[in-house]
């Protein structure tokens, strides 16, 4: 397997792992406080819809001419990656609260307890809907990464494998500890994924627009390094500025 394939596998693994952790928190909160059967049916239904999306859109994406695909996928990865990177920088610098799985678990569980089912033995529509929505919305981001990265590498199965390993790993660890996976360094992973998506987006978007990169494929590594250094420097500068502002205010 070459470096590009490892990059594909790693990006899809990291993006999927962090989204699965978020979905797992919702499912666990709903399952514990409501009804496991209805909750798991919601999970299965969402996974079925997501798998159908990959199966439907995947072959069509691979058939698009490579330059058009690079431009479209590059643009999508850029707008998507910049969202991840922006949020990660804001969290790292203190302008946005860190993602707290324990707090999210407590909130979801409290909401689920507020409206108990009239008949505990019947199908719980609330639990089904909440777990379906949680898994589908978080999973949609995974599907996006798997399809775009996979299509441009011409290897959707490898991207799907990275996602499947991540989902399997998070579920196994989650079931073993039976608690929200609050120790996963979500912001660091999101920072990394944001850098990867943005860098690949810059590389493929510009190539799709007709640019020839100096050094060809080696330029990608330089883009990753420059993007990472720029993002880390921005986060550090904003953190300093925020702390200075707080000190002046106090």
């Amino acid at each position: 397997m070459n470096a590009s394939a490892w990059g594909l596998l790693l990006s899809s693994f990291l993006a999927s792992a962090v989204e699965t952790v978020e979905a797992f928190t919702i499912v666990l909160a709903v399952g514990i406080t409501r009804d496991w059967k209805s909750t798991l049916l919601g999970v299965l239904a969402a996974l079925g819809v997501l798998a159908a999306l990959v199966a439907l859109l995947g072959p069509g994406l691979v058939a698009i001419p490579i330059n058009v695909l690079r431009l479209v996928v590059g643009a999508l990865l850029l707008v998507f990656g910049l969202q991840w990177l922006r949020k990660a920088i804001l969290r790292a610098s203190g302008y946005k609260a860190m993602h707290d799985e324990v707090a999210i678990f407590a909130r979801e569980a409290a909401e689920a307890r507020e409206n108990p089912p009239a008949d505990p033995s019947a199908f719980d529509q609330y639990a089904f809907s909440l777990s379906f929505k949680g898994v589908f919305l978080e999973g949609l981001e995974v599907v996006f990464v798997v399809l775009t990265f996979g299509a441009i590498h011409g290897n959707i199965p490898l991207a799907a494998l990275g996602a499947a390993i991540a989902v399997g790993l998070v579920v196994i660890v989650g079931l073993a500890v039976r608690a929200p996976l609050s120790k996963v360094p979500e912001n660091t992973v999101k920072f990394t994924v944001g850098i990867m998506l943005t860098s690949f987006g810059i590389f493929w978007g510009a190539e799709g627009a007709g640019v020839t990169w100096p050094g060809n494929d080696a330029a990608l590594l330089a883009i990753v390094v420059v993007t990472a250094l720029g993002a880390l420097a921005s986060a550090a500068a904003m953190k300093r500025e925020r702390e200075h502002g707080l000190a002046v205010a106090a």
Partner: protein
Amino acid sequence: MNAIKSFAAFLYDFIVGDDWRMSLAVVLGLAATALAVHSGFNPWWLVPLFVAGGLGISLRRVVRKNGGS
């Protein structure tokens, strides 16, 4: 009609997210690059420049909103 509106709002939020200025920077950067390539140039630096500018402006707005300079 409500379902279409909700789906459009969901798509906007999913793709564009919190700040449309970053998406605009991406579209402008790619369009400017394609135009320059069509005119015989190889502006490989143009997309990174627009991306850095878009992200920088977006972050600066958050800092200003929170009382920064």
